[in-house]
Structures are given as structure tokens and as C-alpha cells.
């Protein structure tokens, strides 16, 4: 049985008994996941490769629905008091509220400004000054304003990998989501850029709830308030980060964080 601690804070998301199967897969990739996500905090997801971290993360913004045949077999994900796994959920609206940063930087083939303004324009913001202000604010919040202020019209693909990843963060936070999902956001970056992103993550939690998948346990320890350990599609343990890395309750968690497997 899994050890899931009770969290004292308000919950941004509550997952209950979620089970998910990929198209054509013989076994579910998520098994009976029950997990609270604390509001305005950072929750890290760790676990060996293939354990289902990305799968769980992509359930929160229903990314799986882009491809036919994947099914949420059982359970629910509660967000704002409703079950967002419901087929009637408005996915456009959901994805505006629950943003996502990917493993690799994904600058669109357009200018730096247009990249950051993209989500705002999708929502119908046309006013020039409002766009300018919000783009500038997002770039500042993503700590990339200094490098880009004088080249907003330039092609975003001219930025370095680390800069592009921060640009993607700026693009995601420009629409002011309530939750931001990060899937190994620093796995393609150098140590300095990684530090920058980690600092950002801890700063952003004042404004939003963050869930971050990482392979790097030091990173989980540095940035997160809560950590969930997954193994073979199950959530084995969810605890306060400082406790979990020192005194894990589950044997499997202990073996994983002490490097006995993984």
C-alpha cells in the first residue's frame, strides 16, 4: 500500500484512484493513483524511467487526448471542484489554466515577442499596450528580459537552449495559469541554465502551483515542497520533501533514493 501524507495546505488538484492505459498497451501505465497537489507549492515527481511520471503529468492537462485511443479507465482528477477527466471538459479552457513546459525548449518559428504573446493572442488580447506590458512582465518573471529586451523582433530560434527554455516559461506564464507542469525542464540544459530554471521554479510558486518531473533527486530536494515517488505506474509514496529524502516510509522509496536501483 502506498503512503500518502495528508497535506495541511489547500489543494490545487486532487487525484483519486486514477488508472490510465495507452492505446493498444496490454497494461495500464497509471495504476490507482491517489495524490493531493498542494496549492502554491512545488510538487516533484521522481522515479525510475518508464514508471509513469510523464504519463501522470500529461493527464493533468489532458495532453493524452491529442492522440486517439488512450483511455482514462477509472478515477478522477479534481480541479476547481470538478472532475477534469470528464469527456465534457473544455480542453482549451483547461489548458489555459494548466500550462506545461516540455523536456526540450520548443520555441515557435516566430519572433521572441510573438512567442510570448502567442497564448495571449489566442485568448483574444489585441490591445497593443496591454500585449506589450504583459509580454514584458512575463519575460521579466521568467528572468530573460535583460537578454531579450533589445531583440524582441528577432527569431526566437536564435536564442541559446537555456534562453529558449526560459522563453517557453515566459510564454507559459504570460497567460497566468493556476498550475504549471514541468516535464524534466532542465534535462537538455547546462548547469548554469539549470540553476536559473530552478530559481525560477521556486519563485513562481508564489503565484501558481507547480508540478515538476525530474530525474535528478538533488533537483527535487532543492526545489520542491512535496515529493511523490512512482514505481511501475503506481504512486508509492508522497511526502514532504525534507522528510522523504531523510526518512522515507516505504522500502522502495528508500532503495530508490539511496541508489539501489533506478
Amino acid at each position, binding site marked *: 500500500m502506498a503512503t500518502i501524507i495528508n497535506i495541511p495546505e489547500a489543494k490545487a488538484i486532487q487525484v483519486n484512484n486514477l488508472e490510465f492505459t495507452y492505446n493498444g498497451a496490454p497494461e495500464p501505465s497509471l495504476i490507482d493513483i491517489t495524490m493531493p497537489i498542494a496549492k502554491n507549492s512545488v510538487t516533484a515527481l521522481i522515479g525510475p524511467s518508464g514508471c509513469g511520471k510523464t504519463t501522470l503529468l500529461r493527464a493533468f492537462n489532458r495532453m493524452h487526448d491529442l492522440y486517439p485511443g488512450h483511455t482514462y479507465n477509472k478515477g478522477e482528477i479534481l480541479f476547481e471542484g470538478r472532475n477534469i477527466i470528464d469527456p465534457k471538459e473544455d480542453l*482549451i479552457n483547461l489548458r489555459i489554466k494548466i500550462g506545461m513546459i516540455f523536456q526540450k525548449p520548443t520555441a515557435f518559428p516566430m519572433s521572441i515577442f510573438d512567442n510570448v504573446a502567442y497564448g495571449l493572442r489566442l485568448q483574444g488580447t489585441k490591445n497593443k499596450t496591454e500585449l506589450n506590458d504583459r509580454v514584458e512582465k512575463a519575460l521579466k518573471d521568467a528572468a530573460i528580459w535583460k537578454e531579450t529586451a533589445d531583440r524582441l523582433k528577432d527569431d526566437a530560434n536564435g536564442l541559446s537552449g537555456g534562453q529558449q527554455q526560459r522563453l517557453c516559461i515566459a510564454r507559459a506564464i504570460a497567460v497566468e495559469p493556476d498550475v504549471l507542469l514541468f516535464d524534466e525542464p532542465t534535462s537538455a540544459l547546462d548547469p548554469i541554465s539549470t540553476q536559473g530554471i530552478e530559481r525560477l521554479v521556486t519563485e513562481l510558486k508564489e503565484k501558481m502551483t507547480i508540478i515538476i518531473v525530474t530525474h535528478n533527486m538533488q533537483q527535487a530536494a532543492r526545489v520542491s515542497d512535496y515529493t511523490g515517488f512512482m514505481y511501475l505506474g503506481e504512486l508509492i509514496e508522497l511526502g514532504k520533501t525534507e522528510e522523504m529524502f531523510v526518512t522515507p516510509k516505504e522500502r522502495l522509496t528508500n532503495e530508490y533514493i539511496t541508489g539501489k536501483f533506478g
Partner: protein
Amino acid sequence: MTMLFDKIFAHSTRIIAITVLLVVAAIFTILFQESLLSIQSNGFAFLSDTKWAPNLEKFGALPSIMGSIISTFLAMILAIPVAIGVAIFLSEIAYERLKAPIGISIELLAAIPSVVYGMWGLFYFVPIVRDIFGGMGIGMLTAGIVLSIMILPFMAAVTRDAMNTTPDILKESAYALGATKWNVVKDVIIPYAKAGIIGSLILALGRAIGETMAVTFVMGNVHKISMDITQPATSIPVTLANEFTEADSDLYYSSLFELALILLVISFVIIAVAKSYFLRRTRRTS
């Protein structure tokens, strides 16, 4: 050993590349030599005269030139939106189960010999165009339609391939911001695949402008410039295909060669301009 192979490989590819250039140069030279008589006696008026009367030794190339340009232009205008629509459907909208069968049929269509399109156009489209637009049914409009159908499969297939190179993660990033499918196609896939799409359009254009068999049947071979695209007309390849066997004087013969030279120059210029204009802009934005 490997060093030696590398050297042999490098040299042989270089020789092949140079051979291609030599062939192009040779074609140019022969066309130019054969055209010399026409260039000398017809002069620049060849390009602007509208009268083509071989029995009177009057050679004006403008109707053929205009015919080539207008029928190609029509074909492109008709084919581009459909080809891009089909490509979007195949890469983004169709169910997985449909993608392969439709995709393969389109590739098969691209392999149909152009003479088949020409015959089909003559027997099928000429009556339709005649019924709808009046006139004789043969002419620039029918040629444009047949050409557009001929280049469409190729255009659609290459455009689809270009669109399919867009990384999933890039599309997902747009969806993750609340984009609709249409937003993703317009803002991510088309800009990303722009270079490939334009490349396919340029290749199709090159095919259309030089196309002979598909249009010979439906053009009419009438050396007249008419504002009415339903009237019979001609284009450079059509004139060449129809008249080489009849060229009974040296000047007639040479004039036809000059037409061929003009066609080559037009193709080169259009392709060079299109390439430098669009691809330069693409490189800046992607």
C-alpha cells in the same frame, strides 16, 4: 584504405556534379546556336509581336509566351489551395486508418503519365468547360484546369511530407497554451514547414510551365492573345510539339528553337526569383 575510398568518392561525386552543369550549358549553347538565325532576323520584335504566320515568314512569340505564363498561373492558383488543404487533412485531420490509403492513392496519381491527363482533359473537361463557360471548350482555362489536376498530387504529397516533419513536441506546446487544431496548423505547422512547402510549389511550377502532353490536347494551338481564357490559345511547349514537324524553312525552324530558349530562360528566372525571394524570407523567420 578508407582514405582512398573517401577520395574516390569525393572525386566521382564532383565529376558527376560538374557533368550536370556541363549538360545544362550544352543545352543552352545548342539552343542559342540554333536560334541565332531567328534572333538576327526577327530581333526583339519576336518577343512582342502577336502575329505568327510561318507562310508569310512572320514570327511573333508573344501569344505562346503569354499562353505559357497564363496557363501556368491559372494552374498554380487552382492547385495551391487544394493541395495545401489536402496536405493539412492528411497530416493533421484524417484518422490514422485513412492516412495511409489516401496518401498512397495521391502518390499513385502523381505517377500518372501526363499524356493520360491530356486525353482525359480532352474527352472529359473540354465538354464540361464548354457547357459551363461557353466557347469551344479548348483553351487556356481548360489547360489551366488540367495542369492543376496534374500537379496537384505531387504538390499535396510533398507538402504533406514537409508538414509531417513538424516535431510533435512543438505542436503539443501550442496545444498546451490552449490552441485549437486550426491555430496549430496556421501558426506552427505551416511556418515550420514553409521551406518544404515552397520547395514543392516551385517544383510543381517548373513542371507546369514546361508541360507539353497534358496541354497539347486541350490548348487549341491558336496563336492569338485573347482576353477570354475560354478561347483557344497556345503555349510554348504546345507550339513546339505541334509545329516542329511542319517547319519547312530555316527561319521557321530557328524561330521554334528561339521559343524553346525563351521557355528555358522563363523557367530559370521564375524558379530563381521564387527561390531567392521565398527561401530568403523563410530562412530569416524559421
